[in-house]
């Protein structure tokens, strides 16, 4: 594995160029996917709503690239990025979002409930904080079954309002469970700034349980990834859970229909994040500055992925809806 030295001589021992380019590709895939979702909503081709992950791509990608396929994740209402980063295929995801039979859940789950056992995705969850018990339970089972798997629980900072999160963390630390709580702090719980909903320190919440706690720049995929590698190793070795606080920002509205946002967050703030701290730009400029890539490489990645996204969305648009009999199928196992 090639050792990469940055100009500032910060050493990146664990991530090589290929891996970084792959992470760029994954982040771009999420972005292109989400832009297409927005398009589908605006052209009234998608039923319901969706919560876009644009702006937060580095977290899902940086974390999931540190996991094995067998490792578990649980996700949120803003879950498309997590699913894709864990290895879901875009055609089946689009099909699910359009309520088609070819979707991951035969169209029964939709945007907020995509699950894919083959890639260790135990499901997105439309109940804020609702998956913290599930992720902790998956970690419990991994430990009991001795299969060495790690579980990652993604959630937004709004979930810090939910008691279940703390009950889960307490047990995870008591029983040294291999679970990593990844808190995506994008500053807002829907339309409310976190400072109006969350007293005190976010990190201190996990620290109070004695859980290994790290805060990272969620717009820097290298930092997210390096940290995730360490926390995964910690969990896999049986040393217990971790809490990873990632500072980030969502570029779009809370959901695709949240267009007029100025009453709760200023346009300048949105522009500042987009222009000055974009996870894709951050990585591409770092690679370019360090002579590891040039514009041509990114263009190539982007055009390949864009084509893939276009094909996938066409596949989903043309796919059939589930047959009526499907409605009573799967109520019981």
């Amino acid at each position, binding site marked *: 594995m090639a050792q990469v030295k940055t100009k500032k001589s910060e050493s990146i021992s664990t991530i090589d160029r290929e891996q970084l380019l792959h992470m760029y590709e994954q982040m771009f895939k999420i972005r292109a996917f989400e832009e297409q979702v927005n398009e589908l909503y605006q052209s009234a081709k998608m039923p319901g709503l969706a919560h876009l992950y644009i702006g937060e791509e580095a977290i899902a990608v940086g974390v999931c690239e540190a996991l094995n396929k067998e490792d578990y994740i649980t996700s949120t209402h803003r879950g498309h990025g997590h699913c894709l980063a864990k290895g879901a295929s875009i055609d089946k995801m689009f099909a699910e979002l359009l309520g088609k039979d070819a979707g991951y859940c035969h169209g029964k789950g939709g945007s907020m409930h995509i699950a894919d056992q083959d890639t260790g995705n135990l499901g997105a969850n439309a*109940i804020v904080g609702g998956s913290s018990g599930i992720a902790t339970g998956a970690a419990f089972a991994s430990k009991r079954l001795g299969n060495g798997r790690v579980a990652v629980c993604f959630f937004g900072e709004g979930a810090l309002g939910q008691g279940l999160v703390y009950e889960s963390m307490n047990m995870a630390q008591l029983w040294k469970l291999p679970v990593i709580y990844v808190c995506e702090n994008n500053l807002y719980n829907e339309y409310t700034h976190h400072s109006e909903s969350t007293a005190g320190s976010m990190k201190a919440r996990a620290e109070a349980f004695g859980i290994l706690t790290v805060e990272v720049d969620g717009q820097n995929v290298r930092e997210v990834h390096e940290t995730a590698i360490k926390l995964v190793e910690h969990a896999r070795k049986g040393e217990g859970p971790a809490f990873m606080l990632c500072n980030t920002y969502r570029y779009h509205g809370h959901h695709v229909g949240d267009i007029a946002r100025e009453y709760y967050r200023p346009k300048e703030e949105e522009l500042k994040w987009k222009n000055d701290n974009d996870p894709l730009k951050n990585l591409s400029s770092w690679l370019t500055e360090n002579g590891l890539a040039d514009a041509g490489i990114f263009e190539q990645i982007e055009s390949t992925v864009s084509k893939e996204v276009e094909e996938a969305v066409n596949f989903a648009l043309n796919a059939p809806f589930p047959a009526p009999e499907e409605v009573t199928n799967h109520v019981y196992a």
Partner: protein
Amino acid sequence: MSMPNANGREIFFGDAIKEALAEELRRDPTVFMLGEDIAEAGTTFKVLNGLVDEFGKDRILDTPISEPGFTGLAVGAAMTGLRPVVDIMFGDFSGLIMDQVANQAAKIHYMSGGKLKVPMVLRTTMGAGRRSAAQHSQSLHAWYSHIPGLKVVVPSTPYDAKGLMKSAIRDDNPVVILEDKMMYKTVKGYVPEEEYIIPIGVADIKREGSDITLIATSSMVYVALDAAKLLEEVGISAEVVDPRTLVPLDKQTLVESVKKTSRAIIIDEGYEQYGVTAELASVIADEAFYYLDAPVKRMGAMNVPIPFSPALEDLTIPNAKGVFEMAKSLCNK
């Protein structure tokens, strides 16, 4: 039949609710509201827009995403001199708050031998059809109706919603009001200029008829009214009765209607199994048995988690065509 008022205005269901809340907030300084994103955002359904401008953030209180916490806080505040109106964004979150509602709010007056009172209102939503999938589409009013000590209101018109909301706020008991989220901005109706209240526990005949009684709740009232129109075309006269409140239940109005028509279908959007339809059917069976010319029929939501795909979701809710067919067969036509 409580209906259009000469000097009324036609307003939306959601606006009628907001008017009731505003009038009660003005009338009684101990009334306040709390819930997620209810202030500047005016709720996720934009139903309370503007209330915060008149009443300020202390009385239209944005909470963390901590449903059990703020519901419990409301119970305590209600016991000690305030009249809280709790906003639970989606009825599906009822599971989170159920201990505070069922074990605390509902029982405190009784357990204290009548010494303590819990004058609070819990507003939440019900109803499918929004393509919001399994965790955001349920109608769980039967859960609340099962618990002695709670009053349960399911209004279908702007007029009813306003009058019942005002009664609920003035009631010394915990009152749960379930509002169909699809009706907020689609259902319009006459509401008087002058102040009025509607007592809790009085059913309303929404349409008079003589051949069959359609007992319907919330948005299902419109399904029943549409079915009644179809039935009229084939010479069947259907009466549509709206209980308006499930607890206490105006049995007399339901029973009188069925005694007159000798046939009944009960239509409700909650799950059919062990649901509201079963309870109401048993009332008819008990008290109008010797007047019946046909078995009492029930139509509820299918006994499946609400699927996302429009192709499936639409199958799960009773519709006018289905009610029409059922009524026709009961009337041997």
